[in-house]
């Protein structure tokens, strides 16, 4: 294939590396130059570092105890010996300081995770059947609407049934609500629109048909407890909080006797029937509650991101948005904090969603696949290539070599992804996702990921940190394994999978590969239709259809998070 295409990252590289930012004087030169003059200007070249330096000085003065001081770096040699350059969020024209992509500095990133952790899906049908059969209560669309109105009062912490109960201030919990969705169009028509996630409205017709067929005439509640509650407690609190308020709402809405024996049946059915957590529990050695990121399967994460219903005709875009969201959650928050703690993991993740480098590689792959395999990377099920090793080798090898050569031809790209782990994530995510797009098979994509690692290591004689070098050289052996202790289709693997527990830089890519297989086919969901529908909801503070844009808004301080406590904190 002719290699005369305009690199997607070129514009961003030219702005990032040849223009002045703040006072860094980084002007001139070409992005293909192998040499450059480093001015060694330190932190004073960067507006955000200056802000942080000033804040550190004020903090030290205020409390009489030293704090942040950039001159502590390497015993007095400050950051910024090379230029401190900002980054573009891929797929946008938003340029941000990279400090603002640490989740501590980015309210949108926090909200994305908050919105996942505080979500639980609870079935409604068994509770209704219990009401009808055990208690002889008639359930109609009107009673359902009344129940939902009651629950939207009770779920944020409003009292029902009992007198003189403490309540939460509604303005502190204004992000808390419940909606329902159903595959039964007749019932959906009868539900008050404010309570309904309308599958027919939110999804393209073909996807809506798939989803309704998958869930049948069943009805589910998509519940989001208050951000402030899940932050104060943990992911396990989500189902507990929901369970308590559901029970009370049923009792109130259907005027039940709180003490009668049948209420126990209802209570059990209402709280536990058809409950879907976003993440499962982890083993004791990494123990967390349900609904914590280590338990979220890649397929769930792929379904949580909503780009597939917005741009189904562009499966590569779907994949890239999944990369952004999943790298942030799994690398920055899960591995970077829950498993490790610190700051370094941010840059493993940002390599995959900044400056259009991965995007360029994947869109090149799409062109390559469509040219060679007759449009196999376009959305559809009848155009896919058979998922065999020859195809994996061909696509993953071409993808990897193209990406490697970009690092060789464009030294600013190599400098941008200055660590091997960053390069390995980007290259392998491109190779694996491309194989997935072409074959519609996530495990074939995963196979492409591992071949990419082998080729990368061999070409440059280096790979990532030891975690990469170890796990990526034995990964190919478990791609197609379905033994009980090392099996699972990619969609059902997650950070909990034995070999992935410490795989920083990988899990976002694996999620993308799982997503790409289904986006390539035009599937409405990757593994769980309930999760996909639950997040098809514009009322959530974080827009899951474009996570990268949201991260940019967070970095630019334009994002309004939920769960803020300023209402009850003295004004400053």
């Amino acid at each position, binding site marked *: 294939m002719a290699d005369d295409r305009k690199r997607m990252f070129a514009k961003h590289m030219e702005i990032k590396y040849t223009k002045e930012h703040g006072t860094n004087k980084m002007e001139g030169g070409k992005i293909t130059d192998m040499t*450059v003059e480093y001015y060694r200007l330190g932190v004073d070249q960067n507006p955000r570092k200056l802000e942080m330096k000033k804040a550190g000085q004020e903090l030290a003065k205020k409390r009489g105890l030293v704090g942040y001081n950039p001159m502590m770096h390497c015993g007095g040699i400050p950051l910024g010996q090379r230029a401190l350059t900002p980054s573009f969020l891929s797929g946008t024209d938003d340029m941000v300081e990279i400090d603002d992509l640490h989740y501590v500095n980015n309210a949108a990133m926090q909200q994305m995770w908050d919105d996942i952790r505080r979500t639980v899906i609870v079935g409604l049908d068994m509770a209704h059947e219990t009401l009808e059969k055990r208690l002889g209560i008639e359930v109609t669309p009107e009673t359902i609407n009344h129940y939902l109105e009651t629950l939207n009062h009770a779920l944020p912490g409003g009292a029902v049934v009992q007198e003189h109960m403490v309540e939460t201030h509604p303005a502190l919990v204004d992000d808390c609500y419940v909606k329902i969705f159903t595959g039964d169009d007749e019932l959906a028509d009868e539900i008050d629109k404010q309570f309904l996630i309308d599958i027919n409205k939110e999804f393209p017709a073909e996807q809506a048909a798939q989803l309704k067929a998958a869930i049948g005439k069943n009805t589910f509640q998509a519940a989001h407890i208050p951000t402030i509650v899940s932050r104060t407690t943990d992911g396990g609190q989500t189902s507990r909080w929901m369970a308590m308020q559901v029970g009370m709402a049923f009792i109130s809405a259907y005027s039940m006797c709180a003490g009668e024996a049948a209420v126990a049946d209802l209570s059990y059915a209402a709280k536990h029937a058809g409950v879907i957590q976003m993440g499962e529990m982890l083993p004791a050695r990494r123990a967390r509650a349900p609904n914590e990121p280590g338990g979220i399967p890649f397929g769930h994460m792929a379904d949580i991101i909503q780009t597939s219903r917005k741009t189904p005709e562009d499966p590569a875009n779907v994949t890239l948005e999944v990369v952004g969201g999943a790298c942030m959650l799994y690398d920055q928050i899960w591995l970077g904090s829950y498993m490790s703690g610190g700051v370094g993991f941010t840059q493993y993740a940002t390599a995959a969603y900044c400056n259009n480098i991965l995007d360029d590689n994947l869109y090149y792959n799409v062109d390559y696949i469509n040219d060679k395999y007759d449009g196999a990377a376009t959305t559809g099920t009848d155009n896919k290539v058979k998922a065999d090793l020859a195809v994996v080798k061909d696509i993953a090898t071409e993808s990897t070599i193209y990406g490697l050569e970009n690092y060789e031809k464009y030294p600013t790209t190599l400098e941008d992804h200055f660590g091997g782990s960053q390069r390995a994530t980007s290259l392998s995510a491109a190779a694996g996702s491309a194989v997935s797009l072409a074959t519609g098979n996530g495990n074939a994509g995963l196979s492409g990921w591992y071949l990419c690692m*082998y080729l990368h290591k061999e070409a440059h004689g280096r790979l990532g940190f030891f975690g990469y070098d170890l796990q990526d050289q034995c990964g*190919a052996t478990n791609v197609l394994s379905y033994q009980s202790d090392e099996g699972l289709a990619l969609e059902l693997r997650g950070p909990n999978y034995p070999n992935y527990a410490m795989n920083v830089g990988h899990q976002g890519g694996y999620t993308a590969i799982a997503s790409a297989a289904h986006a390539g086919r035009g599937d409405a969901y990757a593994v769980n239709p309930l999760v996909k529908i639950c997040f098809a909801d514009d009322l959530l503070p974080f827009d899951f259809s474009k996570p990268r844009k949201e991260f940019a808004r967070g970095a630019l301080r334009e994002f309004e998070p939920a769960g803020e406590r300023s209402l009850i904190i003295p004004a400053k």
Partner: protein
Amino acid sequence: MAYEPQYYPGATSVAENRRKHMSGKVEKLREISDDDLTMILGHRAPGSDYPSTHPPLAEMGEPECSVREMVEPTPGAKAGDRVRYVQFVDSMYNGPSVPYVRSYAAAINFRGVDPGTLSGRQVVEARERDMEEIAKFQMETEMTCPALASLRGATVHGHSLRLPEDGVMFDMLDRCRKEGDVIIMHKDQVGRPIDKKVNLGKPMSPEEAAKRTTIYRVDNVAFRDDAEVIEWVHRVFDQRTTYGFKPEN
């Protein structure tokens, strides 16, 4: 006919250089004195005794063991030296060695070594006097260019950055610099200032570096042009995928 190890596939100069590094039959290009080497490694003062972690093996009264009798201890182990490290960073811009080849070279040609490979650096740990032998070997031969490879025990950042204008690989701690036509090191490998400037010799010219390098680059020897190497990577991949680590099955 005696067996000749092949070490590495491939028909290009990069593959040939990888074979050469692994075989240990590399060209000596410069001299580094023992004292200079000790000074830039930074583990002990030049001329001082090797600190030890145990008495010489001969004084230890070790239990009878056929394996102990079969394996001759390295000089460092025999003397009871502590374990110390040497760590290199090799530029992506035609640095003469790449981390995996440095590891292979150490593992194939030296005993008692523990090589570690990462993206930007390669560390060898060994008993101190054994480590010094390896360090000297690497620094004096074509495995190293003083401008494109650097001794860095800490703050290894720089292997993938563009080269500063004088062609010396970026180092935020400025351990090495070009003075006249040679590279000097005025700090040890972790960045502590040392008492004198150590002359590491002349940098390779761009042409020489391109000729001696073990990295594939599209502007020199492209990876895609070494079909035999790619074929062997594919073979490893096939066998690991199909058979796990048991290709005989």
